[in-house]
């Protein structure tokens, strides 16, 4: 599976200097292919998260289009796009991303549960053990630390076996040991299951696990390492 971005840009109407338009992401094109890990580096505010959101179907670009299996993502209606996100795209967002009324395990199984699909309990259990949160299975998110919450979100994304996994600053709250655990889990997921992983980060730790490195500066995307 391939996600293909064709000249996508995100422009906001914001008075910046003499201009009324502000480009969070200037027109960029890229392909995300299965079987590898791509890392997008860049400073805060450079447009990384905006690009990730556009690629993952969360934010409609103001220009260009995003194709997934040759279908324009943003021409789909909400129901089809939501189903596609649920089945084929996994996202680990920045910050807390838990439903507080559910336990850790219920949160992890939620994407499949919402659509009444078979719940990947074994996969979930396996990834929870891999990322050292197996003993938090029945705990509610309010009782978790930032790092535990982050790992829960990562397991939620991995357990549903998405074709493409997007992770926005996935190691921001993690210590070195857990950072290594998470990044190697992503690498293994991409290589062994032939899936695509796209990581947005400003931490250089991720570079050692990347097959492809992009850099973003002031909304411009460049390939740093291929």
């Amino acid at each position, binding site marked *: 599976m391939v996600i293909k971005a064709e000249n996508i840009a995100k422009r906001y109407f914001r008075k910046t200097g003499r201009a009324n338009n502000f480009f969070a992401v200037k027109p960029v094109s890229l392909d995300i292919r299965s079987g590898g890990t791509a890392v997008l580096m860049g400073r805060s505010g450079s447009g990384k998260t905006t690009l990730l959101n556009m690629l993952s179907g969360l934010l409609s670009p103001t220009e260009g289009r995003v194709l997934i299996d040759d279908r324009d993502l943003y021409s789909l209606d909400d*129901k089809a796009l*939501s189903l*596609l996100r649920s089945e084929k795209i996994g*996202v680990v967002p*920045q910050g807390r*991303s838990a439903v507080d009324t*559910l336990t850790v395990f219920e949160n992890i199984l939620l994407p499949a549960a*919402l659509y009444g699909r078979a719940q990947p309990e074994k996969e979930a259990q396996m990834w929870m053990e891999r990322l050292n949160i197996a003993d938090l299975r029945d705990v509610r998110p309010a009782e978790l630390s930032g790092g535990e919450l982050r790992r829960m979100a990562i397991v939620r994304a991995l357990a549903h076996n998405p074709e493409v996994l997007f992770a926005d600053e996935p190691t921001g709250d993690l210590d070195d040991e857990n950072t290594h655990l998470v990044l190697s889990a992503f690498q293994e997921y991409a290589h062994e299951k032939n899936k695509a992983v796209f990581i947005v980060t400003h931490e250089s730790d991720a570079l050692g696990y990347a097959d492809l490195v992009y850099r973003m500066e002031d909304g411009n995307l460049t390939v740093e390492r291929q």
Partner: protein
Amino acid sequence: MKIFSLAVKNLVRKPVRTMVLAMIIAFLSLAVFGGSVVVLSLRSGLNSLEARLGADIILVPSEAQSKVSFQNMFLQGTTGAFYMDENVLEKALEADGVEKAAPQTFLASLKADCCSIKIQVIGIDPEQDFTVQPWISRSLSREMGDMDVAVGCKVEAEVGEIIRIYDERCKVVARLETTGTGLDTAVYCNMETMNHLLKAAEDKGVSHKIGSGDQVISAVYVKVRDGYDIDSVNSWLNGHIRKVTAVRTRNMITGVSDGLAGVSRTVTFLIAAVWVLAVVILLLSFVLIIRERSREFAVLRLIGASRRMLSGMVLLESALCGLLGGLIGVGVAALLIFPFAQLIESTLNLPYLIPDMGKILLLAAGTVLLSIAVAPLSGMMAAYRLSRIDPGTTLREGN
């Protein structure tokens, strides 16, 4: 865990939020159900009073109106007695347009050793009576014999019990159905028994006789034939029977009707005020909930929930809150209204008859349905806004 089960978990695991919403709706449902039951009970009481009076015109001695308030006699069961010759009945029957006429004789027992209870005793002629007898027949399949009495539902005497009235022993043979009027506090007997009691009262020094006849009566209930003008018949009776006043029953209950209309207006206004208040509070609550839950909804969007799913979840949660609030409100209203019916009746000073169980259940079901509907209606804006949330931006904003 589809949307329904997620909605239930959200409600159960956020009990404070759920209860706050439910209590607002409970307040609304309490007002609607409680207010409606009170108004319906008053209407039933008025209908019952009309049915029990059952006549278009009542003939009473002219001086009766200065002795006792009819309204108080019928509404509150105030005891009172006045008498006239029984030939008033014959004169009434001679009037053109009178279809039926039946006498009643009143006697007030005393709060003294000679009487078990202070009560209004009403003597009827079972063969002629068309107002009280049909009501008595519902509780007593045979005719009342001599010294038998039927008691209203609020009289403290059981069937089979003997009560003393002016030292005469009377056997209670029936307890009558409730009417919600002063008639519930009276005791009923046939004319023979009444004559015994009148004589016994006279022996005790309580004199009743006026006029020349052996028999006395207190009132004649008149039913006007269809097609005749009641006011004309009323005027004729007033003009042709001396020392007797003909009173239209409608005029007797006009005060009650006016009182009922006043109470109905007040209750309706209160219900409307509570409605507006509750809906405003609900809208504000949902605005706060939008702020509180935007991140949760962004997460749900992120993992693939469609807008329709999210709107459905908000509406489902609010409907379930509505159901809970509706049940609580109806339950609390029932606990307040039914055990305290007597207090409400005496406070309002109006005939008060709680409607039958079928009507109550229908009203309760209607109130609960209304509660289920009002919460999602108030939450629609919240549902729309939450379903339109931009997950990427929302999740970043919270960091």
